[in-house]
């Protein structure tokens, strides 16, 4: 417990002219759940592909279990389970054939667990993967990713486009991986409520750079959402210290800001207003403030 499972140092990656990752550093320790959030194209999938060796690090280093996934694919991949949004499972295979094939490739395969999951999901083992719906493919891919009890589970947007039932199955698998075996989970998602529930650590990637990374509760604690009421009427949001996002109009504004409450309160009072209420910001509010477009940014532009 507490050992480093993944270590990414100053990773940069470009595809032609586009920079996908710019000096990204990331660390994962055993037994924790890591949530990666970011807009589409922010670089989450690129980072995860580096962990699997699908992409080779041209600048910076990537180590999983202390090994380089490019020079030692066996050492890394035998202890990793992977499920991606695209579910690139061979179309011609049947579900039971996929189970048998994965079992042969992974000595740690738990046949009882696999069978239990097949039954719970209600999958017909004799059906070909190309005949399965998107949700069932995700379930099949999930079984082959978790049934060998990997030390590290990597999920790339696993829930996208799936109904609530399948999403619940995926979340359950994450919980069981961590609770039962003390395994590590790294998952990327744009469903922020999922990330907020399931992550111990959250990392926000915006345009290839890590803008936020830390223990979820601490990250949330660093940002607050406060309601302020001003004596005068404002057409455009007034400039306040540490304010990242302002919504509302006239005299009452809702502000997402960083920094301690006292500092913000002083800044508000200086502008002739008062803080009516204040609470920790939710992950969605932080995400929108850091990675989205805000009126304040647009005004500044």
């Amino acid at each position, binding site marked *: 417990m507490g050992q480093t499972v993944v270590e990414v140092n100053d990773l940069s990656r470009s595809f032609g002219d586009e920079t996908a990752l710019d000096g990204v550093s990331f660390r994962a320790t055993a037994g924790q759940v890591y949530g990666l959030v970011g807009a589409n194209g922010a670089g989450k999938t690129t980072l995860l592909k580096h962990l699997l060796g699908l992409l080779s690090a041209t600048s910076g280093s990537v180590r999983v279990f202390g090994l380089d996934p490019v020079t030692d694919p066996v050492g890394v991949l035998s202890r990793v389970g992977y499920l991606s949004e695209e579910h*690139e499972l061979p179309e011609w295979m049947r579900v039971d*054939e996929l189970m048998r094939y994965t079992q042969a490739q992974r000595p740690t395969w738990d046949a009882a667990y696999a069978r239990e999951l097949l039954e719970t999901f209600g999958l017909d083992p004799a059906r070909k993967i190309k005949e399965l719906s998107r949700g069932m493919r995700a379930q099949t891919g999930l079984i082959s990713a978790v049934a060998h009890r990997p030390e590290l589970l990597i999920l790339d947007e696993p829930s996208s486009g799936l109904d609530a039932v399948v999403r619940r199955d995926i979340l359950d698998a994450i919980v069981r991986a961590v609770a039962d075996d003390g395994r590590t989970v790294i998952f990327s998602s744009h469903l922020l409520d999922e990330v907020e529930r399931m992550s111990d650590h959250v990392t926000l990637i915006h345009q290839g750079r890590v803008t936020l990374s830390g223990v979820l509760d601490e990250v949330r604690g660093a940002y607050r959402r406060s309601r302020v009421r001003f004596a005068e009427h404002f057409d455009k949001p007034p400039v306040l210290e540490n304010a990242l996002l302002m919504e509302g109009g006239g005299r009452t504004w809702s502000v997402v800001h960083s920094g301690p409450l006292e500092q913000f309160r002083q800044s508000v009072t200086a502008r002739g207003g008062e803080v009516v209420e204040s609470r920790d910001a939710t992950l969605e509010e932080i995400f929108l403030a850091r990675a989205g477009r805000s009126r304040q940014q647009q005004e500044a532009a």
Partner: protein
Amino acid sequence: MNMDRLITLFRIPCPTSSATWAQVWFELRSSGLRVLTFGLGMAVLIYFLFAMGVPYIPFRPFAIIAVTGGVPATVLIFARNAFGIRRKQKRAYISAFEATQPCGTAQLAGVKLLVRMACVLVAMVAVGGSAWASSSLMKAWGPWSANDTKNTSQTLLQTRSALEKDLFGTEGYEFALQVVNTLLFVIIVVAALAAFSALFARYSRRLLVSGSLLSLWLLALRIGRDFLPQAIYSAMPWIVVAALLFATGYFLWSGFKERALTTGYVCGAVVIAVANAVACLPGSFSSILGTVLLPLLPCVLAPWALHRVRHT
């Protein structure tokens, strides 16, 4: 013809005891059986055409085309892309499913190449055997038309027996040598095509540029035959061998450095290379070196290229 139903006939469950045998099963099911079934289909088609040619003359030219085109087609079409590289839009890649299996690149390349070679060989034997057996039906063909003075069937039969002597020889050991040569030929072609498709997937621009340069160089040599010094032309085999040697050395070093090659794999490749050289004896020193390097380079290049595609 529903391919799926045909393949269902060969449904063997995936072996779970060994990862390597599971990989062999995977390769057979994903591409190998297709090669075998088409080979079988072609063999049946050839026999059908020759048999129909006995009563119906219009079938005869098709029968000849099928034989003369069938065997080379089997090798080229079925031997290509043993690594299963797909193209989607502008990208060429191997599927993430295969790339994330806990299997070393050299072993993956080795299994893919060997399974494909075996399937191509079996398909070749089926097609070749059918061609040889069916073409004997030409004896029953008779004249092709009312004014068939040239006696086309007779000419064809003579060509057939001449080919027979060439391919199978008169002695037993000549036949054995031909078998070994065919084996080596298939191995080299499969490895070379696989390496090429992998290289093209990753370095298409560089390949096209170097390919164009090479063609220009060869063209220059051909045109300058009359006024360029003879020394260049006599040195050419040495230059080629030196280039092959340098390339092989480089890819061996790079392959080991990146762990794309393993000693086991390279030993296998060396055995094939030496066998090829022995089969091509006797010859000059440069030609022997050439016959060793010619299979060695594609065999070493194939996993190196696969490694580059797998880890982009």
